[in-house]
């Protein structure tokens, strides 16, 4: 993973000092709240329902055991002993004091972390496939490019006051785990006719009030032109994005209003001037960053060793039902023989999705060092993972995780719910999202039932801003406020991957006391109707909404 050089260290340290000065000027009254607010947002500091909230960046979801320990320590000393992993691979603290945030940021800077640009009308954390570097079908590790984009976008003088926030995601695999099609810019690695790797460029995806699937504006962009092309897109957006209406200010609206063709022409015209210019990276710099993402020193197991490991592994799996369950849902194939990707569920039964205690953070750090190369990943599904675990170590890992409530065997299953903080924490929310997630996870607690259902994503947002990504859940739930009472609108058929689709509303909203039953009805209906191994969306496409509506609204 990337390690800071003196330039990177200097930048974050100077930025903290700068913010420290800005905080002091705010506390003294020299800066008004109106002048200060964008500055604190550009340092990831929100003012929420109960307190400030600090969003710390985890660039493309990759961090180290050492960094995790600092995050745990910060939770203990600056907050209330826990943190929350988000739907953009970041971590949030819900109770920091403004007057201590500069010290907190200094401690983060000490371990090469920051909260730069995790809020505000600027380019946000660049997210990437959480299986980057270890998934078999990858063209190239997308994090190299995510890191290049991260640096290019940090304190960019031209793009720090955009019409609105700007989110970029990168995937190196054809199977898109990074939801690139619902980002402002999505970069999909691909190859040209000669097999050279580059990017398909997608623009104008997004969720929120007006959800859109991104349009492909360029089939193939050679890697070396990545930054000049991005600069062209951002420059067009910065100039033409709407400034009069906050709800129409994202680039997706601009693309929609101009039309993809006209928008593309503007970008290509600007790019023609920027191409091969100073913003392109020197080849040496690309190589330097690339070197940080070289594979770790995997042990090369002999065929005989692998066979023995496999046999032992199969015995464990056979003997221990719990282990078998966990393997089935939480462990994914790794490109290096004898290794595996171990997902760590932050969705325990009845728990707050994505929340983790300081003790659990320390444990994950320890396990990452003991059973991996010290690397941890955060996924945008609010879970963690260890990317490089020897298969021979999976059993011990599972046991250790289990002792600390981190081994729920539910990754990708119906109990692996994504939920925003909602009205329990967030000033923007209209309804609570977390207790709905908790109740659903309790209803579907039985692992056998979850496996019988198979992969099914439930996503819950407490307001139209859709931080819970409900538009792209197979079952999406949107909390609304009807005359001061919480109601929940259900959508079906969303998808965040390469077959990205926006869910459609199924019918009238459900009250807080009815929504869990409604979800269960939908799931049971699916199980009744599905043919063979049909995934939820396939069934939905085949039979339409009618069978679901009938069951849901029959009694009403």
């Amino acid at each position: 993973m990337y390690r800071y050089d003196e330039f990177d260290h200097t930048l974050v340290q100077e930025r903290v000092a700068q913010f420290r000065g800005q905080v002091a000027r705010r506390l003294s009254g020299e800066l008004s709240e109106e002048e200060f607010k964008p500055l604190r947002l550009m340092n990831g500091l929100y003012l929420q329902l109960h307190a400030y909230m600090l969003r710390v960046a985890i660039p493309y979801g990759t961090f180290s055991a050492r960094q995790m320990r600092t995050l745990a320590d910060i939770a203990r000393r600056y907050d209330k002993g826990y943190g929350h992993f988000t739907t953009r691979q970041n971590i949030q603290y819900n109770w920091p004091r403004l007057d201590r945030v500069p010290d907190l940021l200094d401690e983060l800077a000490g371990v090469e972390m920051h909260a730069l640009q995790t809020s505000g009308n600027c380019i946000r954390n660049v997210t990437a496939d959480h299986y980057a570097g270890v998934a078999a079908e990858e063209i190239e590790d997308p994090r190299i490019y995510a890191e290049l984009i991260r640096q290019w976008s940090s304190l960019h003088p031209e793009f720090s006051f955009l019409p609105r926030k700007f989110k970029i995601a990168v995937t190196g695999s054809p199977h898109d785990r990074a939801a690139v099609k619902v980002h402002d810019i999505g970069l999909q690695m691909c190859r040209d006719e000669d097999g050279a790797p580059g990017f398909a460029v997608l623009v104008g995806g997004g969720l929120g009030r007006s959800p859109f699937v991104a349009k492909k504006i360029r089939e193939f962009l050679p890697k070396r032109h990545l930054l000049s092309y991005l600069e062209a897109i951002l420059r067009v957006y910065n100039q033409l994005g709407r400034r009069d209406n906050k709800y129409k200010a994202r680039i997706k609206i601009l693309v929609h209003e101009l039309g993809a063709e006209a928008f593309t022409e503007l970008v290509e015209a600007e790019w023609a001037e920027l191409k091969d210019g100073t913003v392109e990276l020197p080849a040496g710099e690309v190589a330097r960053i690339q070197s940080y993402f070289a594979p770790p020193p995997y042990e090369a197991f002999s065929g005989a060793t692998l066979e023995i490991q496999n046999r032992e592994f199969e015995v464990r799996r056979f003997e221990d039902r719990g282990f078998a369950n966990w393997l089935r849902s939480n462990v994914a194939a790794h490109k290096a023989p004898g290794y595996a990707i171990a997902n760590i569920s932050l969705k325990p039964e009845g728990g707050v999705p994505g929340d983790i205690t300081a003790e659990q953070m320390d444990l994950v750090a320890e396990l990452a060092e003991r059973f991996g190369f010290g690397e941890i990943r955060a996924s945008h599904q609010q879970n963690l993972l260890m990317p490089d675990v020897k298969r021979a170590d999976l059993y011990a890992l599972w046991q250790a995780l289990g002792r600390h409530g981190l081994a729920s065997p539910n990754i990708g299953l119906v109990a692996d719910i994504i939920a925003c903080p909602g009205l329990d924490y967030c000033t923007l929310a209209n309804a609570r999202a977390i207790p709905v997630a908790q109740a659903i996870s309790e209803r579907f607690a039985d692992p056998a039932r979850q496996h019988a259902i198979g992969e099914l994503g439930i996503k819950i947002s407490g307001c139209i801003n859709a931080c819970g990504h409900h538009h792209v859940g197979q079952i999406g739930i949107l909390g609304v406020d009807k005359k001061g009472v919480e109601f929940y609108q259900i959508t079906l058929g969303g998808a965040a991957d390469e077959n990205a689709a926006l869910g459609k509303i199924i019918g009238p909203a459900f009250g807080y006391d009815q929504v869990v039953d409604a979800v269960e009805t939908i799931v049971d209906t699916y199980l009744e109707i599905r043919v063979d191994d049909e995934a939820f969306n396939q069934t939905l496409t085949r039979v339409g909404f009618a069978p679901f509506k009938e069951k849901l609204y029959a009694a009403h």
Partner: protein
Amino acid sequence: MADKIVTANRLDDGLVVYLNGASGGGSWSERIEDARIAGDDAAADGLLAEAEGPGQEIRVVGPYLIEIALEGAEPRPVSYREAIRAKGPTVRLDLGKQADFA
């Protein structure tokens, strides 16, 4: 008009506070029980003006009026959001005012 009080977030620590104390004093309390209540429009305007008055910009952020209903002498927010704001997250009863002032 329903009874109203003024709430804001404290600047230095972000915690929820309510305008309290003697009129014109411009002081704040974390406890909603302490909030000064306005029974009519004029009083409500006065509360807000005091909350936005000189020196307040470095004490609190974004003061605004909320409706309350009196339960005995205790002000209870009418809106669900403000009820949560007065207590803490409903999913973590061990955090926030509901725990601090238990």
